[in-house]
């Protein structure tokens, strides 16, 4: 078995060989499912998620089963962002099943809904719903961040007008809360083992700015360490944004080459608003 996170101080290396300020490999694709309005697949290390976006659509007689609550209702001036997450039983090592009403899942849904509602121009689609459906295939930490990133990509793919990417990642600290170590290094992009053993937070920023769209911290950590963690997290979000942007552009160029999109309506010329 590998060492635990306390081995960091031996050589400034994390349990998977990264330095404190390094992201894991991020691999992403968009337009993975032709039938949907927008779709994406994203891996952050071994965390693997899939996203399908449908809408914006006018509400039918029956509304979607679960709603994240962001944006507003079908009757409101803004489109509702309904997020539904399915976590596959095989996605984690303990293969625990989570039901639909699971509190943890409800919270993730609501967080993602609110995060995206901050960037999507929901006011353009009154009385309608944007359905974001997320599937978790494999979990190895930073789940919320991966879900936000995948949802952002799928929304771009669906062509829903938005201000900018909502890019997310996690940040942690190299020693436990109880160790109370003032000299602890901040950590970027935590994997599952690090999340289990160390304090951490999830942060999402809006585009290139330092505007924080999401900040979730569920572990106990000294305030003095928080600033460093946040700075590293925000910095990480910018790196994530670059990667997402590259994925979108590469796909766009490919689509132009394949003739799926008319030449002349280049991505760079696309008006976003």
């Amino acid at each position, binding site marked *: 078995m*590998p060492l635990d996170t306390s081995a960091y101080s*031996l050589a400034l290396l994390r349990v*998977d060989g990264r330095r404190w300020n390094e992201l894991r490999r991020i691999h992403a694709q968009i337009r993975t499912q032709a039938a949907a309005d927008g779709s994406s697949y994203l891996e952050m290390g071994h965390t693997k998620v899939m996203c399908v976006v449908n809408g914006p659509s006018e509400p039918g007689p029956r509304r979607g089963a679960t709603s994240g609550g962001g944006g507003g209702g079908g009757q409101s001036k803004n489109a509702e962002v309904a997020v539904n997450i399915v976590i596959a039983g095989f996605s984690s090592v303990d293969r625990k099943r989570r039901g639909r009403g699971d509190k943890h899942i409800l919270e993730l849904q609501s967080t993602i809904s609110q995060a995206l509602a901050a960037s999507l121009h929901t006011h353009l689609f009154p009385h309608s719903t944007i359905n974001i459906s997320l599937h978790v295939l494999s979990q190895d930490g930073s789940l919320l961040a991966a879900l936000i990133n995948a949802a952002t990509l799928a929304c771009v793919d669906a062509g829903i007008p938005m201000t900018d990417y909502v890019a997310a990642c996690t940040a942690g600290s190299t020693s436990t809360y109880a*160790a109370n170590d003032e000299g602890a290094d901040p950590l970027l992009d935590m994997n599952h083992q690090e999340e289990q053993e160390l304090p951490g937070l999830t942060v999402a920023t809006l585009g290139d700015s330092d505007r924080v769209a999401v900040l979730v911290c569920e572990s106990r950590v000294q305030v003095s360490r928080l600033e*460093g963690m946040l700075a590293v997290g925000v*910095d990480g979000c910018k790196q994530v944004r670059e990667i997402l942007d590259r994925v979108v552009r590469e796909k766009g160029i490919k689509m132009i080459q394949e003739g799926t999109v008319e030449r002349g309506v280049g991505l760079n010329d696309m008006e976003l608003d």
Partner: protein
Amino acid sequence: MASLKRSFESDPFAQNISSKVYVRSTKSGKVQKIVREVYLRQDIPCSSKLCNACLKIAPRDAANRPIPFVLSEKPAGTSVFTQGHYIVPDTNAFLSAMDLFEQSSAFYDVIVLQVVLEEVRARSLPLYNRLVSLTKSEDKRFYVFFNEFRLETYVTREENESVNDRNDRAVRKAVKWYNEHLSKTSKKAPAVVMLSNDRDNLRKAKEDDIPAYSLANYVSQLKDGEQLLDMIPELEERDALIEKKPGQFLYPEHYTLSKMNTGVKNGLLHQGIFNVSPYNYLEGSIRVPAFPKALLILGRENINRAVDGDLVVVEVLPKDQWKQPSTQVIEEEAVTMNENPTEEGSDLISEKERKVLQEEAKRTLAKTTEGHALPTAKVVGVIKRNWRQYVGHIDQSSVSSSAAQGRKQDSVFVIPMDKKIPKIRLRTRQVAELLGKRILVTIDAWDRTSRHPTGHFVRSLGELETKAAETEALLLEYDVQYRPFPKTVLDCLPKEGHDWKVPASMDDPGWRDRQDLRDLLICSIDPIGCQDIDDALHARALPNGNFEVGVHIADVSHFVKPNNAMDTEASIRGTTVYLVDKRIDMLPMLLGTDLCSLKPYVERYAFSVIWEMNSNADIVGSRFTKSVIKSREAFSYEQAQLRIDDASQQDELTNSIRTLLELSKKLKQKRLDAGALSLSSPEIKVHMESETSDPIDVKTKEHLPTMSLVEEFMLLANTSVAAKIYEAFPQTAILRRHAAPPKTNFDELANQLRVKKGLDLSVESSRALADSLDLCVDPKEPFFNTLIRIMATRCMMSAEYFCSGTQSYPEFRHYGLASEIYTHFTSPIRRYADLVAHRQLAAAIEYEAVHPAVRSRGRLEAVCKNINVRHRNAQLAGRASIAYYVGQALRGKATEEDGFVMKIFSNGFVVLVPKFGIESLIRLRDLAEPEPAATYDAETYTLTTSGSREVKVELFQKVRVRVTDQKDETTGKRGVKMELVSTY
């Protein structure tokens, strides 16, 4: 802040990523497959100060500080590598010879590979911790090289390759890389040498031209390496066992871990800690949840290589094999005396052992009455060995005459001081030097083919029976940390040293939220010569007719801040250990005996508990505060008593002590009414000659009312604080509980009292027990009651520290003190638990913020676990020290004393001599020469001898014994020897 935002240098898509698959089994026995990513990189330095290339890629932390390089530019050489060398040990080398690497004479500049560190951690956490502390030691220069993350040294497991083989290959690859890498730095670069004790690994290294040696081979290249040779275990061959013929196996094979797990899960097998009877080395017992009484494990084959303290799995034997516990004393030394350490007999059970066992069997068969038989079991496997280092000496009789002179390697037996540990076979070249010395050894293995475990020599403590050697032996045996405090700890002390004073200005931050109690008439009462004064008291009458009583405790938490080096050291030590002539402090002297100690006439910081009490000693109100006090006097118990008794002394201070005494009597009565037990163990004081500190006399301690006085108020303070911190931290308060003993614990004692004295012992509650103990009196023999109390105490559970969240409230109860809730608060200088309680109380009264270490439940549980062990060890070490000095005090003297029979066997009996507080076994063969015949009646606890000497010995009987000193050949300890003079 800017320093944190470093740009991502390498292209994240170009990183080398590899997946690693681990398989782990969970506690419930499920197997999980874990896939993890590994990021391979080329910027992990070799850490040699010779290498400039690596200096450029030295990793930096978030504050942009580079990691300093570890390996010396001028490493030591050996006879083969004159240019100097670095060492790369494999896993096996560390696991089998960690002591060697901790030597200060050699083993510098060591590269610890990540793969090795991981394997060591998986195999043994204690060894892993020792290895990690080596890597942190600056002078040993151990560098951890993360070979599994460096691109060039990473190896993937091949098809059909075992994990072990893959890891060995990874070690060889890393050594090869190091050699190639360093050869670029200069022509005369140091060699990088692999050390292994695995033949296969060494052979493969040779094939690949990698410098590699066995530990023995390597040590022989060192200057003065010969002394280290004995510390080296033998070469291992992984499949060596399988090649042996099945007929040669002496012991049944152990089950595999998964088979044991399955068995335990479906209730066929049971898991527990194996304990050996102190009177019979062939009898063990194990407590398992499924049985109310401990399971017996009888005989070598059933014990199947389990050693006292191991976590084992047992299978219960069929009912027709259930037996009574032995009533016979069986000592390993007497039975296995003539075994030859070099030849292993082909029979597991020697002739002599067989004879002893047959006698046992006959006796039990003849006597098996229903209900007396206990379930028996056999050990089928060991989950976790609890082997440690053992102190012992070489059995003179196992040494061949040639070995005693030459330097040939020879096998000898080491007899551990702890009688519960089997003798250990040891191969050594220094038999001649080690004879007659106290030595430290470890157990390496216990194969199926070997009757005794094999081990190796660690170091010598000195001549047997010298004070230095015996004291160190004692400290090692009870795992007392006795080394001087390291500099990092001393650095945490106040800079002013002994000149530190309570700040004169009350504006000083030290005075914040502290009450000024300097005008109170406070004094301390302690044993004579006490230097670490934890507690002081005061009492004064209030205008309303009530009394104000204060207990003032040294404010240690002011000086020891959580998580600094001093705190960590104290938490490891757990307690101060008191030996007869020595005190091993938990905290540095400066604090313990000066700055924290509530010395008289000087101002000191304190933590005070102050009650308002009515004259009936009922508490009207209580409060807690940090304070500054000035003790007026430090009394000894005797001085305080004299002052109280002297009616002419009518000063205010003396009168306040009288008030305290009156109130304490009422408090005590209330406790007794609630069912508190007054148990006893004889307390002995050894008088020393002041010049030579040689023991000259032994006396039992006298009990004075002033001792009760202090005790009662300390109990009250502890109880009050316990309630307060539990109220503030329901999940994480540090408390102390004493579980009610299982009723079956008293079965034997109750039966003995009924049969021998017609007395009843009722154990329904502590109150009932206290009352029935009061009635256990023999009008002719005042000591009888004390004897029964001593024996009852041994039926009790031991009290323990715990974290409040781990038990339900009813389980908090302190049985012995009949208190609902209890903690330790009053001795923070000498107990770590009290220091934690101080921090929690300070947070509870909002004096300071809660430190995370004080309210992390996991952390507190670990602290409790450690201090419970330390506390117990400290008590045992203290007792062993007294036993040693009693032996020394009696040296060359013979006295006749009265004693009492407290345990009886079919071939001997145990006598307690109250005057010295010692007990000793008198065997049949000690009674007369030749050994008299004897009949033992288990129903009436009577042993009747006939033939060479005719006596009748009964349980509880008063006897006259001659007490002399004698060197116990078995353990090498000098102890008392008793001979029966008469039975009155």
